[in-house]
């Protein structure tokens, strides 16, 4: 069975989206690379980007969309997490704010584009 080179997953940016998007991404990664540690690290970093979108992109009473687009290249996996809302890093709960640190600790590169919503682009070297 051939492995698709790319996939895009979309959900409403509500808390349950994190589980739905992770399930879809996990299925893709499982077919792409057998290393469970690498899979877990990708899921962890992408999960933080998704959680940021769920928490900060939209009015909770009127959530828009969050999407996860994944492109498998020969030596790397490129993941973009997008929303169309406002970007807000300020955390309301003491102790929050670790998401970006975690993304930087795991991904080989992290870029954030805040024009017209937020696009977080994560690149992971493939094992």
């Amino acid at each position: 069975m051939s492995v698709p080179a790319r996939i895009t997953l979309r959900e409403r940016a509500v808390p349950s989206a994190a589980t739905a998007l992770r399930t879809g991404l996990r299925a893709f990664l499982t077919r792409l690379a057998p290393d469970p540690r690498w899979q877990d690290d990708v899921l962890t970093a992408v999960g933080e980007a998704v959680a940021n979108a769920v928490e900060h992109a939209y009015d909770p009473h009127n959530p828009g969309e969050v999407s996860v687009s994944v492109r498998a290249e020969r030596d790397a996996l490129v993941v973009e997490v997008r929303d169309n809302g406002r970007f807000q890093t300020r955390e309301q709960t003491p102790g929050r704010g670790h998401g970006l640190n975690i993304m930087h600790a795991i991904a080989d590169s992290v870029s954030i584009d805040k024009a017209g919503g937020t696009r977080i682009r994560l690149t992971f070297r493939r094992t």
Partner: protein
Amino acid sequence: MNDKNAVDVISLAGELDIGRKQEVRDALEVRGPGSPLLVDFSDVTYADSTVIAELLRFRNEADHVDRRVAVVITSPQFDRLITYAGLRAAFDIFDDDRDARAFLLESDS
């Protein structure tokens, strides 16, 4: 009279992400002075930073009423999450329930 061998255990299981934030918050409640607290995440298979935030709040609340906290984590993903967040030193983490209990009871004696 306090039971010197008593430990209050809070257990959570499954995948803990932002979708279960309120459940985690409700479970991690100190409820005043008492025995040492063991947070058992041994059946947790995935966690994100919302859990870390709740665990930090819980630890701070426990500190205020002088209750020691030990955390059991067996998931490699969860264990690395703590490291990636730079918070390994913030918690007393064990991969075994018996070691965590021994730590709490020794600390409390």
